[in-house]
């Protein structure tokens, strides 16, 4: 699979949006060379504000601008965009519903060598807990561009998690993104792998491996964690009778928890979970970390086989 950087795509998409809409304002917290908001800053210096290392202040400023009619994109690393300013996000964005898009880069453990302090693995739980927020994790750069454009066109607070590393492309340029709608990537009958973000590519790889072993899997990309496409989850549970959820996140409060809640309410089936569990990761190369902490295609394969076994036993 060819690859591209979701954050670089974000930076370029912002410039496009800036040309179309003069009310788009971009904020950053001293990370614009990394979040790629620097492209926008160069093109539209009057509409870019570097808030320095003041994430809490940045969220408040974003809210004030949005309350004055602006569409605000505010970027920093996912760890700071979630944990550092959660109260500000709750008060100023969730409770108000203001039109601010938190686009956070360097999400998950694949930020790599910077280590535990920089690995955002609780961000999805935090943002999904907030009423009124739309939470999106694009699977690749093509989806990232579409998600950012749709966020700009949709009123209300968004959290979009992007990665640091180059991500394999799972879509072609003709891909049509639909907010809140899960994407069926593969159709199978034995089990469904539901994945988000970088785990979508891993899920596709796993389904290839499983196919060779005679196991026919569905693969679904849930790019929008909130609002959740419950219909797609119920359909997958009904059609395949087993679900594995894969995400680059802690075990609790992310996609796995959310899918399990839907299944429990509407169509309980045996479920498996591929995630980081209840622990922090350490420094290392992205791929090494994915290996070490159980987020590979191989881990998904094992989880699928286990869940099918449970299905057969039940």
């Amino acid at each position: 699979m060819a690859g591209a950087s979701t954050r670089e795509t974000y930076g370029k998409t912002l410039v496009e949006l800036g040309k179309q809409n003069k009310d788009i304002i971009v904020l950053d917290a001293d990370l614009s060379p990394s979040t790629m908001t620097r492209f926008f800053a160069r093109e539209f210096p009057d509409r870019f504000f570097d808030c320095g290392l003041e994430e809490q202040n940045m969220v408040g400023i974003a809210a004030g601008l949005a309350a004055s009619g602006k569409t605000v994109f505010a970027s920093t690393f996912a760890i700071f965009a979630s944990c550092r300013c959660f109260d500000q996000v709750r008060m100023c964005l969730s409770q108000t519903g203001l039109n601010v898009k938190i686009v956070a880069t360097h999400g998950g453990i694949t930020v790599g060598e910077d280590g535990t302090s920089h690995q955002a693995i609780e961000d999805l739980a935090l943002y999904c807990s907030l009423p009124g927020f739309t939470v999106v994790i694009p699977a690749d750069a093509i989806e990232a561009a579409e998600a950012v454009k749709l966020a700009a066109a949709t009123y209300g607070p968004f959290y979009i998690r992007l990665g640091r590393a180059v991500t394999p492309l799972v879509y072609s340029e003709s891909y049509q993104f639909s907010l809140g709608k899960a994407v069926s990537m593969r159709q199978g009958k034995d089990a469904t792998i539901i994945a988000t973000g970088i785990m979508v590519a891993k899920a596709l790889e796993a389904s290839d491996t499983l196919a060779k072993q005679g196991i026919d899997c569905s693969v679904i990309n849930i790019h929008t964690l909130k609002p959740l496409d419950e219909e797609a989850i119920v359909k997958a549970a009904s059609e395949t009778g087993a679900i594995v959820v894969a995400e680059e996140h802690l075990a609790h409060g992310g996609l796995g928890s959310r899918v399990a809640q839907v299944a429990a309410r509407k169509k309980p089936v045996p479920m498996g979970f591929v995630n980081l569990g209840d622990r922090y990761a350490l420094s290392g190369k992205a791929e090494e970390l994915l290996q070490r902490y159980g987020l590979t295609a191989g881990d998904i394969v094992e989880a699928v086989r286990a869940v099918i076994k449970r299905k057969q036993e039940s």
Partner: protein
Amino acid sequence: MLNRTETSSEGTPPSNKFDLSVPELKGMAKKLRRHVITMIATAGSGHPGGSLSAADIVTALYFKVMRHDPQNPQWQDRDRFILSKGHAAPILYAALAESGYFPVAELSTLRKLDSRLQGHTDRNLTPGVEMSAGSLGMGLSFSIGVALAAKLDHRDYKTYVLLSDGECDEGQTWEAALSAAQFKLDNLVAIVDFNKIQLSGWTRDIMNLEPFAPKWQAFGWHTIEIDGHDFDQILAAFQKAEKVKAKPTIIIAQTVKGKGVSFMENTAAFHGKAPSPEEAERALKELE
């Protein structure tokens, strides 16, 4: 939820339409203080001390200083008042009701289920409320966003933000202090209701803020120090702030916690406690 679509400036007043004299402002401040007491006593909970200390500043803004139109709360060119110390919601509600944003009778619904007047301010529920507040230290940041928008849109409205001294404990206040100076926001005026008492005691004992004005000066602000209960000084300070260029202004208003009610003055006891019916009666008598 309120319709928050901004409306254009046609047919709206160019300046404060009340334009009260100083004696009239004193009368209005007393009236607002009475509302505060009655509202909180009726609700059975709330924060009287910090509403009473801010009463004169809020009165001056709504009835003399600010350009605003209660019939048109979303008027694009209105001066903005942002209450960062959200627990002083009652004094803001009283000013909004008396200036005509909603009926005065509604003040008695404070803190009740389904009321538009929440315990702490909610911009989506109450006409005239600019910011949802209650978690301290956030208002200055929000105000910077509002003031930046004015610059971006070439609008000449002013952004006024009222902080408590206690919330200057919050680190975010100082993040915002740095950035307002960085962005040269001379259309932003902060007022600190320096009543010297926070929830559990005197600020000097809990977390000393002094030397206070020099801190703001060092952060790049123009500072003005006044008696926050003297209308001549309050009005003069706002006039001086108009003339400051290329930097934000902070008015440090020395105030008395619980001002106007003898047994609420200079005590933390009524920071977050409602007066009993008997105490409310005594308070209202003092405010006649």
